[in-house]
């Protein structure tokens, strides 16, 4: 059994969001980079748990990014897994990225591909679905629980106002979110071991992007809060009813 986990580098959740070059690019000055939390806390940790239960599982991770993504991959390897693959390309077109991952996934013959439910910077929630389509494999998105049973998996996924339990044939692609696993902190042994784990760099396959980012913008600033005294709750209700017209 072979599992591939897709990991992506994203700005830390506390990063100040600003843009440069006439709002064409994210301003990464002073930004700390982390592994996308959904990839790390849920997808990767669940895959590691599966491998801990069944040592015959091979666990690889893959990222699409430049050499500056390597510290993030080493950190992912410190949590667990056997090997990482970096596809040496930079893009924010989901189809381009997914095509790269699908090429690696096809070559490696993985039974299971995990992604996070979305990245916290681009919020596309698209990579898993695209990879699945390119592999002609089933896809279960927004998983909150995942169990392996031989050649199938039982996956609980989020639906509006609840959850649905799915039985899915492998090979399959699954996008993971909260519930699938609990965040782990890498320990010293893991960090040492990660230094010598293989990190393969492969060149991208030729694919045309289908989208391009023209510009970024920040939301308009709020006008400022209107405070209502605690002993006049009725006034708040009046404002919401008559001024904001939301109740």
């Amino acid at each position, binding site marked *: 059994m072979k599992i591939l986990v897709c990991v992506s580098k994203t700005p830390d959740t506390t990063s100040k969001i600003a843009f440069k070059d006439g709002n064409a690019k994210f301003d990464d000055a002073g930004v700390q980079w982390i592994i996308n939390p959904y990839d790390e*806390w849920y997808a990767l940790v669940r895959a590691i748990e599966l491998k801990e239960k069944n040592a015959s599982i091979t666990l690889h991770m893959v990222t699409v990014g430049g050499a500056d993504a390597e510290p993030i991959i080493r950190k992912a390897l410190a949590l667990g897994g056997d090997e990482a693959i970096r596809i040496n390309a930079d893009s924010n077109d989901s189809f381009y990225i997914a095509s790269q991952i699908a090429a690696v996934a096809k070559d490696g013959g993985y039974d299971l591909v995990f992604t996070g439910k979305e990245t916290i910077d681009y919020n596309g929630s698209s990579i898993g679905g695209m990879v699945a389509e390119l592999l002609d494999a089933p896809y279960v998105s927004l998983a909150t629980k995942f169990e392996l049973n031989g050649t199938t998996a039982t996956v609980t996924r989020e639906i509006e106002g*609840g959850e*649905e339990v799915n039985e*899915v*044939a492998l090979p399959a692609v699954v996008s993971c979110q909260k519930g699938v696993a609990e965040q782990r902190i890498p320990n010293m042994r893991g960090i040492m071991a990660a230094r010598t784990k293989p990190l393969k760099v492969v060149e991208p396959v030729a694919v045309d992007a289908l989208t*391009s*980012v023209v510009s970024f913008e920040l939301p308009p600033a709020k006008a400022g809060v209107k405070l209502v005294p605690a002993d006049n*709750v009725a006034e708040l209700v009046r404002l919401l009813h008559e001024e904001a017209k939301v109740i």
Partner: protein
Amino acid sequence: MSVLIFIDHADGHVKKASLEALTYGADLAKQLGVAAEGLLLGTVTEDLAALGKYGISKVNQVSNEALNNLDAQVYAKAIAEAATATGATVIVFSHNQTGKAVAARVSARLKAGLVAGAISLPDTSNGFVVKKTVFSGKAFANVNITSPIKIISLNPNSYKITAGEGAATVNQLSITPDAAKVKVTAVNKVSGEVPLTEAEIVVSGGRGLKGPENWGILEDLGHALHAAMACSRPVADAHWRPHHEHVGQTGVQVAPNLYIAVGISGAIQHLAGVNRSKVIVVINKDPEAPFFKAADYGIVGDAFEILPKLTEEIKKIKG
């Protein structure tokens, strides 16, 4: 040439998120000077012709009960076939749970560029530029779709539903879906609650409420407002509330008309999930709580005193 809008449904009914997508798709078709058509996979109990009031001229249906369960692979193939059969140049989804499972697959299948999480109509004056949320609601990106066929998946609660007059024709498509590789073995819905991502009003509690035993007064407010319930991450982590209520950068992202935050400090990761709400009300005993900077209205005070009064005042106007 047409705009094809995917119509999602559950329990025999078209979802509210799809009514937004229908209105959006109809407005987009008008902008492009082409027809707007809907596409429904599976069966519903309501009258499909009536969906014409959202501005579409035709509803295409693949009336096969096997399609009432989602298998994204089966769906994507059927949608791609329907798009080709109807000559669609733009396909619109809601960026809800189903849209997230399916739109990306259709995009890869048709090599049609996708903007996921769109919030407004495209700017077609120079290309096909769609605005979407990025950085978990902290910013927007304007993304140009360069492929001949374009796919937009619209963030729930970002486009106002407008219903007028009119009936759509209903057209049965003869598409035979593949056998599903995903079997649905159980569905657990929280009954009687408003789904968080569809709610117009969200009432949310944080660690300031001290413990799960105190949630009653917040739920009373929620009921009075017909609101969905939400919470901050530590509240879900401590199992005071179920995980699906956790909003924020690493939880559910919501954009209701009204978000009422009680006993929540307003950490940047929390704000990322709620800052697209149209109106934010903050109730917190600490005047320095960062949430007040992101709020429209606020009360500095003790939640335990304020909440019962607030519920009472709201019941008065709700009659």
